């Protein structure tokens, strides 16, 4: 067996269009449950939008912290960490320790808690039970 990462890219859209996407939550709950039941699912997490992103890099020994996502030009995604931190300061401090910040950039994105994911779906009209939290992520 090998592990594969499925990276999800999408356009960040206006609230009305986003609500239509959120309303499709039951389909996602079923899909994730089926993946888990098949023994395929290692992990799934939803990220907050890039409005909450912060990019970290080190150049000439100086740490640069920039508001916003990393604008890829020649760089390609090479890996990921998921850290449990008290707040953004701690996450940035750990990000700074990665040697990759010296030649690349580490984008720090908050993970959306699964109950908020569920709540957004419900607000958009999706009918999902509380137990869906277990299936979703």
């Amino acid at each position, binding site marked *: 067996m090998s592990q594969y990462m499925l990276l999800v890219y999408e356009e960040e859209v206006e609230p009305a269009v986003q609500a239509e996407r959120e309303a499709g939550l039951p389909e996602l709950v079923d899909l994730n449950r089926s993946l888990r039941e098949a023994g395929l699912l290692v992990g799934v997490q939803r990220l907050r939008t890039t409005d909450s992103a912060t990019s970290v890099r080190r150049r000439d020994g100086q740490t640069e912290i920039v508001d916003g996502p990393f604008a890829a030009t020649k760089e390609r995604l090479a890996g990921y960490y998921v850290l449990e931190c008290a707040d953004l300061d701690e996450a*940035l401090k750990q990000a700074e320790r990665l040697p990759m910040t010296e030649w690349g950039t580490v984008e720090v994105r908050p993970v959306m808690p699964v109950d908020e994911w569920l709540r957004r779906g419900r*607000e958009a009209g999706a009918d999902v039970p509380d137990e869906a939290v277990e299936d979703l992520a």
Partner: protein
Amino acid sequence: MSGAPPADPVASAISSAFRDERPIVLATLIRQAGDFQLAEDAVQDAFEAAVKQWPRDGIPANPGAWLVTIARRRAIDRLRRDRSIRDRAERLADLERVEPEPPEASIEGEPAIVDDRLRLIFTCCHPALDLSARVALTLRALGGLTTGEIARAFLIAEPTMGKRIVRAKRKIADAGIPYRVPSDEDLPDRLRGVLRVVYLIFNEGYAAAEGDRLVRGDLCDEAIRLGELLARLMPDDADVWGLLAMMLLHDARRAARVNATGEYVALQEQDRSLWDQGRIRSGLASLERAVRGQRPGEYQLQAAITALQMQAQEGEATDWAQIADLYGALSALNPSPVVELNRAVAVGLASGPAAGLEQLEPLLGDAALERYQPLHAAHADLLNRAGDAGAAAQAYERAIALTANAVERAELERRLAALR
């Protein structure tokens, strides 16, 4: 001073509470509620309650404490009502645990309150926020400025500024930017951004873009208080002392910058007996502390420029050549068209209007300064001294069209009329 009819005392109590107490009330509420947006909404609710209740029940003895109490209750109401607020149960439990502060308690000057504002300033100046958002948010939260005033101070459109502030608050919540004074190791770096912001608050107060008063002393006081607080926190930091020195020396001239009829008075014509000697002494002492750091930063250079201007016994005796040199050093450290403008003015005073115009002319093509009133006022003054009354009149008209400050406008109109 403005000659307007006496305002309704309740309305003026509410507006002065908004200006003076709102930042303190907001900082307290953010600590208690743990969320910037919730706290801001609750403080807004409290002001709406004041508008309704104060005319009926009278102005409370301590408006700030009253607002904190009401805002906390409204925050609890909002948490009970709105299920979408993050960490709702936890926030509610925290808020309900807070001991109500007695309504008579003075909230100004208490160490806990000062700390709240310091925490808030470090949150607002967090490096994960865009610099322009840091400045805007600090002005909005700690300076209590309106979005319109902030937009004008930064020469951008009001809706753009509004979006910037909303986005910054959302990022604080979504990304988990903490509400606390940074750890010792992070403090020096984080302080740089904070100083920049305090400097801009002071500037906004010193030459307010809006209203009848040339000097909004409360904002200057607020910036100086923040500067003093930072000096206590970081007593070995030369830049903190440099900034404090600069603010104190500028502020010392506050009473002399506007005459009895509310008109602007240029430095050379100011009544020096009106200068605040206590502020000057504190300013010079702070400058000395800054100089000890042996690393002249931009605030220290500005403080030195101001000290030179003030120490000259007569306006005529001011060492404008040295001031022009200090502006040159400032420009090398942190190139800015506004510094270049001040340098051009100093050169004009040191070496005559032709030399000043030569320095100033390249700035007239700078898009960032196109709507910057002081550029056109300085251009007009130099043209006038060079004997070109026609061009001077045009430049004064441009400056007049760009000022939102009634006192500045009156002075520019007086200078324009004197040409004819």
